[in-house]
C-alpha cells in the first residue's frame, strides 16, 4: 500500500482507539457514579460490593430473574392487590433493603437515563449540525423542545392531557406536541427547494410561537402551577422510572443504526454543501429531511421524560470534532459517548455538590459545560 494510505489507516486506528478508550472511561464513570451519593448509611465501597454481588447473582440466577420478570408482566395485570417484585426476589442479597433500593431503584435508573439521554441528544445534535451545515445548531433549534414545553404547559396549567394516566400525562403531552413539530418538519421537507437555512428559521419561529403561548399560560397560572412548570423546564434525570428508561433505550437503539447508515451522505453534505453532495451522488434534500426526522424523534423521546436539556446536544458534537474530526462514521459514536459522559458527570456533581439538595442536570450541564466548551474553542484560536 501507498505510504500516504498507510498513514491514513494508522490515523483511523488511533481515532478508533480513542473512541474505545472513551467508551471504557464512560462505563467506569457510570460505575463510579453508582457509588457516589449523600446517603449516610451507604458508603462507596459498600455500594460497589452490592453492585458487584447483585450483578453476579443476576447472571448466576438468570432463571429466577426471568420468573420474577414474568410475574411482574402477567400476575400484576390479573390481580389488583399485587406489588411488582424486584428482579432478584427470593435470592439472598448482600445489602439491606434500603441500600438496595437506593442503588437499584434510585441511582441506577438515573444513571441509565443519563447514558441513554446523553447519547440521544448528542447524536441528534451531531446529525442536525451536519445536515444543516451549521455549527450553531442544537437539538433544540428546530423547535422540538419548545413543542414539548408547550405540551407540558397544557397539561400543568390547563389540565388538558392526551393520556389520562396521571404519572404519564405530562410526558405524553410533551411527546405528542413535539411530534406535531416533527410533522411540521416533514411537511417542510416536501417543499422541493427548501434550504438548510429555511429549516433553521422555521425552527426559530416555532420556538417563538410556543414560547409566547407558554408565557401567556404562565401569566394566568397559579403559584403551584408556575413552580411545577419551572421544575419541568429545568431538565432533570430523577423523573424517568426504570421502565421509562428501557423504553427510551429501545427507541434510541432502533434509530441509531439508521443514523449511522447515513454517515457517508452526511460527510459529503457537511463538507461541501448541496451542489457538492449532488455531484457525489447524494440527494441533499431527501437525506436532510430523513435525518432531521430521526434526530427530532431522538430528541423528543428523551425530552418528554426529562424536560429541557439543551447544552449537551450542542457541545458534545463539537468536543468530539476536536478529537476525531468530521468523519461521521466516527463522529456519531464519539458524540454519543461524550454526551453520555457529560450527562453522568454533570448529574453526579449536581446531586452530590450541595447534597441533599439536587441541582437539575440541565442547569449543571450549562454551568460547568459552558466554560469548559468555551475554553476548548478559544484554545484552538477560534477556528470554528
Amino acid at each position, binding site marked *: 500500500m*501507498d505510504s500516504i494510505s498507510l498513514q491514513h489507516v494508522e490515523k483511523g486506528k488511533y481515532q478508533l482507539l480513542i473512541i474505545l478508550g472513551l467508551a471504557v472511561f464512560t462505563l467506569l464513570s457510570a460505575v463510579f457514579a453508582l457509588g457516589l451519593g449523600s446517603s449516610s448509611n451507604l458508603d462507596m465501597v459498600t455500594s460497589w460490593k452490592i453492585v458487584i454481588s447483585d450483578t453476579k447473582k443476576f447472571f448466576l440466577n438468570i432463571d429466577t430473574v426471568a420468573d420474577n420478570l414474568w410475574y411482574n408482566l402477567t400476575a400484576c395485570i390479573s390481580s389488583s392487590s399485587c406489588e411488582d417484585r424486584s428482579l432478584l426476589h427470593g435470592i439472598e442479597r448482600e445489602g439491606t433493603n434500603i441500600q438496595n433500593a437506593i442503588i437499584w431503584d434510585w441511582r441506577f435508573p438515573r444513571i441509565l437515563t443519563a447514558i441513554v439521554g446523553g447519547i440521544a441528544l448528542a447524536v441528534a445534535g451531531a446529525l442536525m449540525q451536519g445536515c444543516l451545515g451549521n455549527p450553531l445548531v442544537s437539538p433544540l433549534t428546530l423547535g422540538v423542545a419548545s413543542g414539548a414545553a408547550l405540551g407540558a404547559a397544557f397539561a400543568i396549567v390547563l389540565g388538558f392531557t392526551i393520556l389520562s394516566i396521571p404519572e404519564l400525562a405530562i410526558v405524553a403531552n410533551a411527546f405528542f406536541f413535539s411530534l406535531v413539530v416533527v410533522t411540521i418538519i416533514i411537511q417542510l421537507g416536501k417543499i422541493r427547494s427548501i434550504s438548510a437555512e429555511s429549516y433553521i428559521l422555521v425552527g426559530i419561529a416555532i420556538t417563538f410561537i410556543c414560547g409566547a403561548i407558554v408565557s401567556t399560560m404562565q401569566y394566568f397560572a397559579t403559584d403551584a402551577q408556575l413552580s411545577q412548570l419551572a421544575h419541568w423546564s429545568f431538565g432533570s434525570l430523577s423523573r424517568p422510572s426504570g421502565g421509562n428508561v428501557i423504553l427510551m433505550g429501545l427507541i434510541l437503539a432502533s434509530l441509531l443504526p439508521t443514523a449511522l447508515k447515513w454517515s457517508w451522505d452526511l460527510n459529503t453534505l457537511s463538507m461541501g454543501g448541496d451542489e457538492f453532495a449532488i*455531484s457525489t451522488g447524494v440527494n441533499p434534500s431527501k437525506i436532510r429531511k430523513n435525518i432531521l426526522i430521526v434526530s427530532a424523534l431522538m430528541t423528543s423521546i428523551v425530552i418528554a421524560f426529562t424536560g429541557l436539556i439543551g447544552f449537551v446536544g450542542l457541545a458534545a458534537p463539537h468536543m468530539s470534532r476536536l478529537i476525531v474530526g468530521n468523519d461521521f462514521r466516527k463522529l456519531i459514536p464519539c458524540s454519543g459517548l461524550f454526551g453520555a459522559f457529560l450527562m453522568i458527570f454533570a448529574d453526579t456533581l449536581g446531586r452530590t455538590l450541595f447534597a441533599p439538595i439536587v441541582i437539575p442536570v440541565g442547569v449543571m450541564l450549562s454551568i460547568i459545560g459552558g466554560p469548559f466548551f468555551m475554553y476548548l474553542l478559544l484554545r484552538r484560536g477560534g477556528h470554528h
Partner: protein
Amino acid sequence: MKDISFSMKSNEVVAILGINGAGKSTLIKCLNRILSPKSGDIHIRPHWSNLKETNLINISSLDLVEISKTMSYVPQNVATSFPMDVFDVVLLGRKPHLSWRISDEDRDKVSETLRYLNLEDFAFRKFNQISGGERQRVIIAKAIAQDPNLFLFDEPTSDLDLKNQIQIMKCIRKIIKDKNNSKSALIAIHDINIAAKYSDKILLLNNGSIMAYGPPSQVLTEENIAEVFGVKCSISSVDKHYIRVDVDDEI
C-alpha cells in the same frame, strides 16, 4: 435556454464563454442534475464504457449515483463549517463507489491522486488551513478520485490569483490530455485569454443558444466578441496554436 446541442470527444477541453447570465453555469449544472430544467429535457449519448448507449438517454432517467460515476462537478469554491482532512475530502470522491468500508484500493487511488496533483504534503492538513489555490486543487483531486468520464468545471479560476489560475488550468489539461484515460472537460469560464490558451474548443453562448462552436481561432473573432460581449477588441496570433485577445473599449 433552447435548442442547445453539441458533441465532445475524449481528451478534449471545451470552454464555455458568454456574458453573465448567458447560461454557462446553468448548462453545466443541468448536465449533472444540480439543476433540473423547468420544462424540456436534456439528453446525452455517452460512449463511455460504463454507460455506453447508441440511443439518446434522458438525464432525468438516471439516478444521482449513476451520474456521479460518469460526471464530476467542480464548483468555483467550496466553503465549509466542518472541514475534514485533505485526504478525507479526496476520499469523498470514492463515495459513489463504496458502501461503508474503505478498501485499500480506494485509499491507494486517493494517495495516487494526491501525488498526481502535488498535494501529498497537505494530505493530513485541514481543508480550511490551506490556501485558495490548494483548496481548488483538492476539489479537483476529489473529482479525479471519483473516476468520471466528464469533468464539469464551474468558473474554476475566478477566485484565484494569476499564478494559481495558470496552475489550475495546466492541471486540468494534464488530466484531460493523459492518454491513459479517455476523459474530457467542460469548463464555464470568464477569461477569454485563458479559455483561448487552455481549451481545444470554445462554445460561445449568446441569448440562451449556441452562437459558435469550434477551435478558439475560429470562434474568437472580433465580430463575435463584439456581438456577444459588446466590446471592441483586436485579435493577434501568438503562434500557430494560440491567439491573444486585447480588449480596447466598450462599444
